[in-house]
């Protein structure tokens, strides 16, 4: 399917343009110290080698640092990995685990980081995979059993910003 404009712009400006033969943005390089938690997520359809890996370093309270490595092809997966890793760095383990990846309104911070005008569904799908991956890495760090992946809806051309605005509804409930 077509890559959404927001994902395309983020990938081009924030990832592709900053990578070369000799360098990569920090989120896509290995940790400088041994990891304490690790998880892999098959974030792209078709199976095979489309594996996104998360490595993190955490203490009892928080994730001190983490990185993502997305072998192969999908720009939306790169984008989601970059955004979710940025979000999780420095955040408490309990706060990371509290998010429900299947509740789209809870992905609002990630859409915000994506920027742009829309909330494209291709980003939604990869945010969910990335969040589940990071959460499993946290569980691995804590010595807890990692969870199997739930069913994630396939991406469509839909833009959540034009739906019934679940983000707004979520905000209202919080108030």
């Amino acid at each position, binding site marked *: *399917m077509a890559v959404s404009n927001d994902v*395309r712009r983020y*990938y081009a400006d924030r990832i592709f343009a900053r990578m070369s033969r000799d360098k990569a943005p920090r989120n896509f390089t290995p940790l400088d110290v041994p990891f304490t938690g690790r998880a892999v997520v098959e974030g792209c359809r078709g199976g095979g080698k489309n594996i996104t890996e998360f490595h993190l370093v955490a203490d009892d309270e928080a994730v001190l640092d983490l990185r993502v490595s997305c072998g192969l092809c*999908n720009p*939306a997966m790169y984008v989601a990995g970059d955004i979710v890793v940025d979000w999780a760095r420095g955040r408490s383990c309990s706060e990371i685990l509290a998010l429900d990846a299947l509740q789209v309104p809870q992905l609002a911070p990630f859409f915000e980081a994506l920027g742009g005008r829309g909330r494209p569904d291709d980003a939604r799908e990869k945010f969910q995979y990335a969040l589940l991956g990071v959460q499993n890495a946290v569980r691995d760090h804590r010595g807890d059993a990692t969870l199997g992946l739930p069913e994630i809806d396939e991406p469509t051309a839909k833009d959540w910003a034009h739906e019934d605005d679940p983000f707004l509804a979520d905000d209202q409930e919080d108030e």
Partner: protein
Amino acid sequence: MAHAPDIAELRAAFPALQRTRRGKPPIYLNNTCMTLRPQVVIDAVRAYYEDFPTCGGGRSDGTKRLHNWFQEELRGHEMHAREAARDLIGASSVDEIVWTRNTSEALNIVAHGIALEPGDEIVGSEREHNSNLVPWLEAERRLRERAGDPELVVRRFFELDEDGGFDLERALAAITDRTRVLALGHASNLDGTIIPDAAIQALAARVHEVGGVLVLDAAQSVPHRSVDVAALGVDFLAFSIHKMCGPTGMGVLWGRYELLDAIAPFIVGGDTIADTWQDRVEYKHPPGRFEAGLQDYAGITGAAAAIDYITDTVGFDTIRSQELALNTRLTERLAPLQCDHFWLLGPEDPARRGGVITMASHSGALINAIERIGDEEANVMVRRGMFCVNAYLHRRFDRTDSAKNNLRASVYFYNTLEECDVFADIVERVVKDPLRYLDDA
């Protein structure tokens, strides 16, 4: 060979090359993994099932008289196949030829069978194929368990040149009095670089001085060039028949007879034994002790046809000259495209890369686009990923997240310059405008 065979005539012998999809023929550039098969090999495999579909077994020297029509015919084919394999690599006896499923199995037999003691060391390069790495890591694990020392270092590696070329001095320096095994890939499946014969000879001499053996993973050399085990001075050699127009799942382990006879069998059972009693077993001498159970007799029959075809109909001169011409064309087209987002692995000179050209990028999306457009528009079949040299790619490229984003095109004698141009056109299109091709990743 009186004269070089015509490539168009050779192509006509491959049924898979006559197929079309969406009105276009295949462009098969994944020959490093597995080659296509000519009709003569397919016919040989079919002949087994149609004409003499029985079990083999019995002695490899063929002296045991059979009173069984089909078995007699099968034995004739089996003996011919073993003799063809022996002749192909310059072995001294058919009893040194062990049938395996592939190079991996052959190397496992050696790694599992060689007697090692704590303190012994295994040496390889930093770029060994997983088939020539993992069996030795397993040997290391077993020795650690025996020694009760989880930190015991058994396998050591030496670095290659910056461009992936082989450095004899580094390899020689890695061999110590503790070295019992030097396990090397003869030619790289990643970038096609080959260890020169003189270097193999020097390494063999050195490792023999210290009481070790040289194990050569020849999966990427035997199908492409003349290899003579006696001239090289190696002790074990492994290769796959399916990388040289033969049936899938056929490989060969060669070893110097006295060494084969000294190593323990890996998989045992029927046909590996001379005799058994309730409390003990006496194994056959090689090669029988390594060929457990009923074998792939169709594959063996096809292997003979494949070796005959490569040596008699095609010839290594044709293979080498065609691969060089094709890789030169690919290199001339792709090397100028190199930039911050796209580059080639291995030495610049195509003459040093056999039939292999491997592209790399930090962007999996770019690599994916080349593969996808090649498939959709021109039936191009290439290979993407880490090509079973994960350890090398991790070591070299993890810092830039580029370890996994590689695309390999590998040619064989039946490929054409026109096919190379079709592929190069697609690569050029994507590399010059990579962000245009992000969709449908």
